[in-house]
């Protein structure tokens, strides 16, 4: 057993989760000192990031068991407990969350003009929700954090967003919330169905739920309910349309967290809940999900090719990239799942960085229209270099983080089915097309306005906020084993769980492919 007492001596997960929220409460009590409360926010997120590194340092990467377990009864009559624990996948994503939360504080240091304190407080609460989701090992607790994370984001878009912020915020909220409610129904349903007898308390503990076996119909319904909730977050085609609007309207920091971490919650949920709890349904539905993923990959790329707004372009590219995540995960083999997780990690770094870059450009030029830019490499050489770096990483240039994940999930998908793998690979061509074309139109060709030479290039503060992302992107590209080792045991546990079902369902998969073939 990996109890937190034995492993590290203090409840690190609880501290990680609630430290930002506590800092947020402290900030609410301090009034009128901008420097001071920004300092508190920075200190809290920095402390949290360091804690997340401590977590990784103490994490035993040779086991798939859940670690740093904290378990206290919460609502005992319903069988709900405050149960926190992590495995390799969560640890990686917690680190990513803590890092991005740390980065956005200096990045939006001067960006927000009104209700500045509340802005930072909202982000701290958001961090609590996000880390909580990655730690929760009790379904109801998971749901609680899931909703906690939704609300600050709603306000961030709705209060500090662009001109159509209300529409975007409501759309974001309704899409996500519709999914959440389906998930809540499914949570309650399986908690009650998993009881040993009608008089026992419901089972919300994921450890126990993973051991219980549900009937096929229950699996299908519950899987779909969970899956839709996660698919909205990922977002999977055709549930993605909230994303471009939300991104375009959200402030830079909001976009960074939204794309960097929030989308990953969807993929994380699929790994944490959909696959271990409903293996039969997964085997049946995986081909269909893969087809949706492929549509997302190609469709997102095609649509981003014709976007005129930089943020929208990056947003649609997220749809395309996250398609690789779901494609890798539902290829249901070790390579694919590890690839999917790596894509999540790398997409968090890169898209976060791209949104930051767009924000920095916007602060200078006050526009995000690609048509208004051009030739910016002249006045902003450093920015051009940095943007090129992240663009290349994002289009999957080998040696940078994007490649490893994308290639692994393609290999996984290809192992599952050759035609699907081949179709997904087209997305790689299209990614190069829309990203390079974007880069060319923004940075190359003639400078449109000589005045821009008077504007400053990237400042030290901005470079410092981008540097960790760039370093990690190179690290994950050159020596991805650091991260792959972290997730390997957990991913292997999933495939081991799926193995018996795959053996039985192997021919079923083929049959479904036959049915797919009949459709087209």
């Amino acid at each position, binding site marked *: 057993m990996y109890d937190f007492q034995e492993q590290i001596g203090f409840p690190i997960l609880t501290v990680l989760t609630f430290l930002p929220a506590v800092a947020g409460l402290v900030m609410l009590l301090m009034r009128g000192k901008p420097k001071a409360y920004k300092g508190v926010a920075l200190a809290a997120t920095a402390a949290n990031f360091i804690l997340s590194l401590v977590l990784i340092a103490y994490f035993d990467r040779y086991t798939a068991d859940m670690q740093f377990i904290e378990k206290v009864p919460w609502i005992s009559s319903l069988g709900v407990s405050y149960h926190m624990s992590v495995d390799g996948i969560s640890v990686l994503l917690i680190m990513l969350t803590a890092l991005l939360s740390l980065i956005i504080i200096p990045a939006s240091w001067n960006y927000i003009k009104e209700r500045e304190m509340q802005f930072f407080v909202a982000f701290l609460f958001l961090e609590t929700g996000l880390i909580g989701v990655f730690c929760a090992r009790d379904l109801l607790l998971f749901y609680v954090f899931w909703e906690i994370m939704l609300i600050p984001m709603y306000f961030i878009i709705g209060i500090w967003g662009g001109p159509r912020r209300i529409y975007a915020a409501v*759309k974001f909220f*309704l899409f996500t919330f519709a999914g959440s409610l389906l998930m809540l129904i499914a949570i309650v349903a399986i908690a009650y169905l998993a009881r040993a007898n009608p008089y026992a308390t419901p089972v919300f503990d994921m450890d126990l739920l993973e051991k219980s076996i549900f009937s096929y119909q229950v699996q299908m319904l519950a899987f779909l309910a969970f899956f839709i909730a996660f698919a909205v977050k990922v977002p999977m085609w*055709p549930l*993605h*349309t*909230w994303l471009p609007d939300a991104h375009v309207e959200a402030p830079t920091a909001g976009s960074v967290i939204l794309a960097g971490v929030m989308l990953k919650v969807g993929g994380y949920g699929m790994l944490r809940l959909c696959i271990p709890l409903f293996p039969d349904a997964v085997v049946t539905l995986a081909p269909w999900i893969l087809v949706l993923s492929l549509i997302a990959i190609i*469709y997102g790329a*095609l*649509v*981003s*090719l*014709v*976007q005129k707004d930089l943020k929208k372009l990056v947003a649609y590219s997220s749809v395309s990239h996250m398609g690789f995540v779901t494609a890798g995960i539902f290829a249901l083999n*070790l*390579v694919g799942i*590890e*690839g999917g997780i*790596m894509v999540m990690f790398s997409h968090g770094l890169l898209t976060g960085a791209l949104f930051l870059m767009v924000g920095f450009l916007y602060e200078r030029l006050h526009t995000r229209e690609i048509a208004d830019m051009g*030739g910016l*490499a*002249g006045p902003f*050489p450093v920015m051009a270099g940095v943007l090129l770096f992240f663009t*290349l990483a994002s289009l999957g*240039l*080998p*040696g940078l983080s994007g*490649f490893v994940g994308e*290639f*692994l999930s*393609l*290999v996984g998908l*290809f*192992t599952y089915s*050759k035609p699907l*793998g*081949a179709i997904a*690979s*087209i997305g*790689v*061509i*299209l990614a*190069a*097309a829309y990203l*390079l*074309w974007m880069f*060319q139109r923004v*940075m*190359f*060709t*003639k*400078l449109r306005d000589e005045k821009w030479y008077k504007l400053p290039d990237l400042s030290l503060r901005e470079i410092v906020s981008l540097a960790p992302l760039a370093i990690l992107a190179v690290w994950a590209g*050159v*020596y*991805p*084993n650091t991260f*792959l080792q972290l997730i*390997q045991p957990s*991913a*292997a546990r999933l*495939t081991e769980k799926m193995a018996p079902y795959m053996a039985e369902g192997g021919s079923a998969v083929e049959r479904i492919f036959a049915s797919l073939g009949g459709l087209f």
Partner: protein
Amino acid sequence: MKTAVLLIPLLPLASFIITGLFGKRYFKEKSHYLSVAAVAVSWLLSVYLIVQVERGEELHWQVYSWIAAGSFKVEIGFLVDQLTAIMLLVVSTVGFMVHVYSIGYMKGDGGYYRFFAYLNLFMFSMFMLVLGNNFLMLYVFWEAVGLCSYLLISFWYTKQSAANAGTKAFLVNRVGDFGFGLGIMLIFVTVGTLSYSGVFSSLGSIGTGTMTAICLLLFMGAMGKSAQFPLHVWLPDAMEGPTPVSSLIHAATMVNAGVYMVARSSPIFSHSPNAMFVVALVGAFTAIFAASIGLVQNDIKKVLAYSTVSQLGYMFVALGVGAWTAGMFHLVAHGFFKGLLFLGSGSVIHAMGGEQDMRKMGGLKNKTKITYWTFVIGALAISGFPGLAGFFSKDSVLAGAFHKGFWYFWLVGLVAAFMTAFYMFRLIFMTFHGKPRDEKAFAHAHESPRSMTIPLIVLAVPSAIIGLLLGLPPESGHIDHFLEPVFEAVMGEPVHFGLLDAGLMTLSALIGIGGILLAWLFYVKRPDLPAKAGARAGFLYRAALNKYWIDEFYFAVFINPVRALGRGLWRWVDVGIIDGFANGSARFFNGVGMALKPSQSGKAQVYLFSMFLGFLALLVAYLILTI
């Protein structure tokens, strides 16, 4: 040896990082010091390496485990054998020379430091490409050299055409890499490993169909990188980059990567005769197709670009028919003389103050002596003039095709060789001979500085003598023996030089000389002939001049439809259907709410009444159900 292998790529990498980070602020016009020094050391080490390999040493070295995800395990590792060593030598020699040349050529350019940094990055990637010991590393640095190519093509990024060309080069290469990547995945799925030795040792168990699929997918990558039809479109446009770049990347090294890849995978290819035939077919078609375009181009660099495409076609013919060493021999020779020719054209452009149109040149012979004579050596070499490098290498390609029974490829090769000789000397006569057509530019014309002419001289030497050194006796020359260990398993019966070969050799020499003479007739003796011939050829002439409208075709068939599709999906599916559905459902509930609004009259007693009616309904329902 390990140190040498490690230093060869790492020195340019270090130089790239240092120059790239500090060049703008600290090195400025001294940026080349570090870069040139790094490449020079790499060159020395490559020479050392080839000497070691000549002595029979080989190196298989796993440095570290790069990706380990489940069963997918790939190392960063080095493999040094004869093939690697010879590639290294070509790359480092031309690379070194181009670095030196760039000192003069790029002088005073705003992005001086940037240029050298990119060049170093390219050298690193190219070295790693040939040093790698597995397919994934090949793919990785394959993409990396593509990136450098992109950066260097769009080096003068304020030019719209340069920016477009860079993007185009990257994208067309990506199309090829799509196939390459799939090929790698297919290899992994069938064999379970990606290291060269692992793959080659387990080929016996693979079915022919899979083998052909793997080969064709890999070859798709080679077609992209080595600019073979129909993926050749990027290379002529890539001439937007500075000329040293065209010389290094788009003539001597990077474009050879495709040839290297096929040669490296020779054990796989030799298992699939069908795939080999496709390789030869594509090569042969490209050779003659590109040569025919080269005949009528007026931009000096475009002529050389199409010539490169055509010569790469030759190499693929050689590989496709199974004359592996001939292909590699042509690669080496071509690397030197085409590098030389490009640098020479750069010197001409430099002399003419940036002018690239041959119709505005002429008579430069006396003003730029060194350039002229080195250029003539290069042109004679590529035309297959007896004794020079191209004569031996091209002849071994053609003889290889003939001996393996592919006489039609041999015939195509001969025709292409004729065209080659013609357009190369057309270039020379238009540029260096006759009367100057643009007096103003001519007046300013001058020989290039020493940093540019010395590389020309240095490269002229191997262009002239490498054939004699490596190619004699034909078909079993030094290079054949040197490369034998690599291709041991796939080489057929050794061919002995006989009377037939002597005849073939003479024939190809005559063809080359014939081409030169025809060019002389057209452009020196009777300058009115080209226009007449052009008018006579009519449609064919226009087709060749417009590169057979392939770019237009791609725009009409791929690019515009894809954009239109993207726009359509966005406007109709995203905004129309999906958002329409989401907003529509919102509007529906809003409408229902509005419809029900009047029922909330605010009168408490009306509410009470409805409450009682509800109570009554429940009661009645209960009574009906129970009684």
